[in-house]
């Protein structure tokens, strides 16, 4: 029964979805939340650890000032009230990746509360997402499961790396989001996308969903149309991409609708999203075992934030992602669809930087959403991990405009850049890809082509200029593409009129 789903449209006819999100943002501070250990992703296991990161007895936490500053700025960007006084609490549970068997978090006094985030869908529809709170906490370590499929189920043992333990997090919690109807999956995706853009613009996080520096838990419940009482909700975890946010919400709506329509009831539980199958499976049931025994953290003292400090930090908060997008769309003169491609690809920043580096908006868009995205997809990585910078793309475009390379050659140059061969100019030099501008070499190839196709020459001479295409093709082939087709055409016509 749990794998049954109802067609999406039908589900929406019967039910109204209510969503809620907990988004965790890892801050890109130099050190961890409460320890002087470096906050670095991808290092050798258990190298970025201090006695505190291992939860050794006798160790004590001290708050990272920069993490608090970042949290306040994020709170302001979320339109939240910044607490005059806030404090930390201990949240207790046993798990091997949690070194102290409690997470230092915030409970009754979060640093930021009561905000809202404006989002705009592809269709131009605007939603206000109500924010309940944003609080500071620390991350847990990372588990690797041995045996079985690499998943926790069926594993024979697990290995723990505490490099991530204690990395600063801000957890952003929404209020229930109602009234989205069939747009719920898009709203979900757009919300997470907006948070991602926001933290990127603030410069406070690497904002990499694939690396877990942004993580989204999605709560969803259904209630019959017209009803006011909220239904039982599930909390879906393991969502690792924007696309998955949308798919997971859609799937949960369909799954829950099928159960409810069949007279069943929804279990309050966590569910795990599976990218491969596009489904969620049951995780841990919520029960009274969820007794976290919160208590004020006695090893830390309250944080007071003056109104002057809030005002000062408010100055450093960039324009909201929605406003920025509206502005850039207009400045760049893109169509709705073109701009959407850029946004959905997470390419707003790189396109902006490419334009700043001198390329035209159209060219910047073309390269980033086109060839570069294609290569990224082919390699199964995020665009930003590729070895190409906005300056490279602008440089590439400049070479084309200067006639040094052709559009076609430019693709080869880009491939060289992506393979780490250097800047576009360096690739052109090293691979000798510059367009052959020596007319004599071209004339030699043209003469050879014309003499082997006298019928075409005759056509051209009789005024059928378009017949020149065949000669151009032959010449370009002979030149291995390293010629400016426009110049070749000019020379062909010149030659034809002379003979």
């Amino acid at each position, binding site marked *: 029964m749990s794998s049954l789903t109802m067609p999406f449209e039908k589900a929406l006819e019967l039910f109204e979805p209510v969503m809620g999100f907990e988004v965790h943002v890892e801050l890109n501070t130099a050190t961890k939340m409460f320890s002087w250990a470096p906050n670095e992703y991808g290092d050798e296991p258990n190298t970025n650890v201090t*006695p505190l990161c291992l939860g*050794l*007895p*006798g160790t004590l*936490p001290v708050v990272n000032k920069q993490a608090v500053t970042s949290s306040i700025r994020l709170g302001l960007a979320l339109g939240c009230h910044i607490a005059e006084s806030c404090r930390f609490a201990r949240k207790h549970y046993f798990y*091997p990746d949690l070194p102290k068997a409690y997470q230092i978090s915030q409970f009754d006094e979060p640093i930021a509360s009561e905000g809202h985030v404006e989002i705009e869908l592809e269709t131009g529809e605007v939603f206000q997402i109500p924010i309940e709170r944003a609080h500071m906490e620390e991350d847990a370590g990372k588990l690797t499961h041995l045996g079985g499929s690499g998943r926790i189920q069926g594993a024979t043992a*697990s290995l723990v790396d505490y490099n991530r333990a204690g990395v600063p997090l801000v957890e952003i919690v929404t209020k229930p989001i109602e009234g989205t109807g069939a747009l719920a999956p898009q709203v979900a995706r757009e919300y997470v996308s907006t948070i991602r853009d926001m933290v990127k613009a603030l410069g406070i996080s690497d904002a990499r969903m694939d690396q877990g520096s942004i993580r989204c838990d999605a709560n969803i419940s259904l209630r019959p149309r017209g009803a006011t009482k909220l239904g039982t909700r599930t909390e879906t975890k393991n969502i690792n991409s924007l696309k998955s946010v949308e798919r997971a919400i859609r799937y949960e709506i369909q799954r829950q609708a099928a159960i409810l329509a069949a007279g069943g009831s929804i279990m309050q539980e966590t569910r795990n999203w599976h990218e491969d199958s596009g489904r969620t499976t049951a995780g841990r049931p919520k029960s009274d075992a969820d007794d976290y025994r919160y208590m004020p953290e006695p090893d830390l003292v309250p944080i007071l934030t003056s109104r002057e400090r809030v005002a000062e930090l408010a100055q450093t908060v960039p324009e909201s992602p929605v406003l920025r997008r509206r502005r850039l769309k207009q400045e760049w003169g893109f169509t709705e669809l073109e701009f959407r491609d850029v946004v959905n690809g997470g390419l707003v920043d790189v396109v902006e930087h490419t334009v700043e580096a001198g390329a035209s908006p159209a060219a910047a868009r073309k390269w980033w959403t086109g060839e570069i995205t294609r290569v990224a997809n082919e390699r199964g990585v995020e665009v930003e991990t590729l070895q190409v910078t906005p300056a490279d793309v602008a440089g590439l475009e400049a070479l084309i405009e200067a006639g040094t390379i052709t559009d076609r050659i430019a693709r080869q140059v880009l491939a060289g850049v992506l393979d780490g061969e250097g800047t576009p100019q360096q690739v052109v030099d090293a691979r000798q890809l510059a367009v052959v501008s020596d007319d004599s070499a071209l004339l030699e190839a043209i003469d050879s082509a014309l003499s082997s196709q006298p019928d075409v020459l005759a056509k051209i001479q009789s005024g059928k200029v378009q017949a020149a295409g065949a000669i151009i093709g032959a010449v370009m082939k002979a030149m291995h593409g390293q010629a400016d087709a426009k110049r070749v055409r000019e020379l062909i016509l010149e030659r034809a009129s002379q003979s």
Partner: protein
Amino acid sequence: MSEDLIRLTAAELADHLASGEVSSVEATQASLDRIHAVDGEVHAFLHVADKAALATAAEVDRRRAAGEELPSLAGVPIAVKDVMTTKDMPTTSGSKILEGWVPPYDATVVEHLRNHDMVLLGKTNMDEFAMGSSTEYSAYGPTHNPWDLDRIPGGSGGGSAAAVAAFEAPLATGSDTGGSIRFPAHVTGTVGVKPTYGQVSRWGAIALASSLDQMGPVARTVLDTALLHDVIKGHDPKDSTSINREWPSFADAVRQADLSGVRVGVIRQLTGEGFQAGVRARFNEAVTLLTKAGADVVEVDCPHIGSAVAAYYLILPAEASSNLARFDGVRYGRRVMPETGPETVENMMAATREAGFGPEVKRRIILGTYALSAGYYDQFYGQAQKVRTLIQRDFDAAFSQVDVLVSPTGPTTAFKLGAKVNDPLAMYLNDVATIPANLAGIPGMSVPMGRADEDGLPVGLQVLAPAMHDERLYTVAAVVERELTAAWGKPLLGFAPELKEASK
């Protein structure tokens, strides 16, 4: 010579070391000899670091011979309570769950001792995770009171108190969460101070109850206590609750002690019923002595002190249940696999904690888990914290009238080993006089005030001062010690029976 060396106070020994009359190696060897001679019976130590101690001593001697200017306590031996982490010695906090664990870092207090070139003799016994008033809850067996080996030395720092009382070390460190420095001082005829909360760093002190724990000095005399206190106090950026300010010299406070005009309050709620007759008698004499020495003594009320024990036995277990959750068999310490059932990490943790913790630790963890659990928090932990506010207000009101407060340190003299070990409620009441200071964060001291008539065992006078005014403890205690020692003709420990030395 060895016999004389161990009986020197730390201050005297420091003078002898400075003048070159005695070497640190000699003094250290004397302490080690004494430990090997008597500790089989006393069991004050869990670990003795003969080699390392002698090496440190030799290095101090070498540097002194080379003409280096050394800190005042350089070369003086000291025993460290096993609650404090030491890089070169096992640290167990009296628990089997940490048996053999050598931490990769030093507690800040230990760092201070090393920076002052003191000689670390070893680690002293304690109730498991400092939970207890008798040191009987140590997983490694009890410590015996040097005054009567059949009796408890107090707890949780019974090892440190017994070590100085048995002349195994002139100085020791302690931790005081509800009286763990002061109660042992009271029953062993020694001196101990719980400083203002936040004056001594807790970094590297294995936490019992974070908001109550405070490290402090243990010694045989008031001056020695002050000298050690001066070494370990001070701001530590690694402890967020550490107070960042300058402190006066406590040794100076001892040397300049004068009680004239000092206002002393006797806490009405900590006299009379519940206190052994011999304790009351000595306390009344001490009050008379204070008056004679020029103090203005009045009675003051702390009406909420009667609820301190109740509040304490909610706050402490709650914080302890949290602090001790980390002992899960994953990263360090003992790991025990379940005897039955699947070998999952969950079962491993539960089996480890079942096997690794003693009965009193389990009792308090379960109690604390209850006090914090959903539905009970407001009724227990939250309510206890309100009582804490009321007790602080009591002290604020009292200290608006007087400079210091006094009471007996404990309700009885040392009881027999085993007498209360299965009666937790009776055990908890030993701390009735000491607990309020921990709840309020104020400094407190126990200084010998004589021996009870009924059993000839030592009893201590507790002195309490407002937060940040630890120097007042020393002013009062110095005068009490001076006057009483003069009256007795020798220090109180001079009345303790000689310990049988095993092999020399």
